[in-house]
């Protein structure tokens, strides 16, 4: 009888442990995908989930606009536990100078030109795709010239993928989907988690169709 009780007790402990472990793994998986896939609600005139750090942001015609040419104005959302994901956005520069793009794996954002940890991928006038790692300072990781250059007031599409420590970014012409430039690189000592957002540097900008999805 006693042995039976002990056996039942042991089984219960094992089952309980397995359940706790499974719950922890599930919870972790949920957190790392928290809120994904994400699509913006700019067309519904809503952006309440976003938080601004500098700049002058407002919704206009299904897009969100930063009217200031602040250096490093940011608009951030998403859980800081997100890990491997792809960020897509249409981007338009509204000044004749500077750059605008997307940030990903962002943590500890604050107001300030480079006040966050994470990655930035942007289109810089007159025609460059730049990718950098930001750790309160901007560390350029890659840059390529865009075929045909870039112009203000023209929509471009940016796609950034972060899988493990492998980062890839592509800029495409929106109308025909033609690739204008891409970079792919490993980043040793990468940031592995963080939210996502929009950023411009010495330029105003417009963003729309912001979509973020988990990738394996």
């Amino acid at each position: 009888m006693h042995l039976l009780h002990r056996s039942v007790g042991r089984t219960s402990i094992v089952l309980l442990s397995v359940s706790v472990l499974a719950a922890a793994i599930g919870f972790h998986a949920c957190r790392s995908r928290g809120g994904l896939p994400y699509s913006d609600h700019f067309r519904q005139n809503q952006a309440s989930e976003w938080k601004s750090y500098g700049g002058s942001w407002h919704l206009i015609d299904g897009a969100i606009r930063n009217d200031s040419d602040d250096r490093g104005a940011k608009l951030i959302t998403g859980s800081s536990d997100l890990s491997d994901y792809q960020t897509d956005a249409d981007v338009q520069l509204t000044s004749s100078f500077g750059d605008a793009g997307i940030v990903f794996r962002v943590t500890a954002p604050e107001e300030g030109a480079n006040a966050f940890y994470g990655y930035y991928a942007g289109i810089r006038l007159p025609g460059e795709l730049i990718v950098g790692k930001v750790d309160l300072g901007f560390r350029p990781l890659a840059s390529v010239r865009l075929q045909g250059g870039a112009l203000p007031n023209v929509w471009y599409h940016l796609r950034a993928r972060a899988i493990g420590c492998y980062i890839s970014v592509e800029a495409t012409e929106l109308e025909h989907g033609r690739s204008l430039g891409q970079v792919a690189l490993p980043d040793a000592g990468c940031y592995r988690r963080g939210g996502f957002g929009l950023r411009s540097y010495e330029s105003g900008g417009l963003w729309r169709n912001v979509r973020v999805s988990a990738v394996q």
Partner: protein
Amino acid sequence: MLSDRLQSKYGREIGVRDSARRVASIALLVLCCWLCANCRTHRPPLIVGVPQVTAEEMWEGMHAGLLKAVTESHFSRYWNGPTHSDDVERQIAIIDRQLSHSPAGLAVAPDNASSLISIVSKARQEGIPVVLMESELAIPMGAGVAIVETDNALAGRMAADEIGSSLSGRGSVAVVGVNPFVTSNLSRADAFEREIKSRYPAIRLVAKSFSGSSIAETEEGIEQVLDRNPDLNAILACGVSSTRAAHAILARRNQVHEIVLVGFDQDRDLENLVRRGELNAIVAQDTYRIGYLSGRTLVDMRDGKSVAERTLVAPWLFTKNNIDSPDAQRILVTYSGWDKTLCTYCTEASDVLQ
């Protein structure tokens, strides 16, 4: 009887097991608390750096130097500042917020010699070592506050000698873009005037204009100086924005090659102007070294070591003849090579600076 004995035996065992579990639980709890406390204790001490402006070449060089020093000492760093110059309130707000984290040290480049006194005093009262980088405050701050800055007297003399030799010791000069709120700026302008008066008595100082609160105001001041002095031979511009403004105005008036222009401080645009011969010279600051020495000084202060009250860092004069020398590139390249070398995937022609 047997069951009683068993109950008694196992009851004792269960009792012993319960006690053991309780002891184990308490031990585990104590271990967790110790680990948490230990974890907190061993977080690297934080050095806070607050420049006048972030993300400009000159200040990022300082950032790179500070980062090198704190990394060598296994400290961590926070670096942030206003996104545009003259935003003193933002600079104070950043410092105030960081002081609440009780950092191991504060390195600040005051954007206003008077307005920063209170916040630096607060840091000092809280026992936080402070280094004033690049510029001082309007009053001496005493113990607990060290200064690491460019040798501004030498910078002023270098600019005067460059203009003096370019004009062969004769002519007229104007000083533009003097910022009355930044002591380093005033010191350089004063040293320049003294040197001109003592070594080049045949060069007249005909005008002095102050930097405005906007580029437009600074430009207006320079335009007025040129309008009132049609025979002007040389201009000394006291900062990056006033040098850029002076060059732009001279270019509009087709006077780039008529009037000698020398500027203080550096950025990529000014470097290119010197290379093209459209700007005679720049007197550059070794901001990487200022940042590095500031970081080292703070670490030493925290460790209770005695440090120099004031450390002067030599400036550099760059002309078309030496702008591409190894020394010039070490001083002028953004981040002092900190980042350029990391950009393995940058195309050679690209200019990826932020």
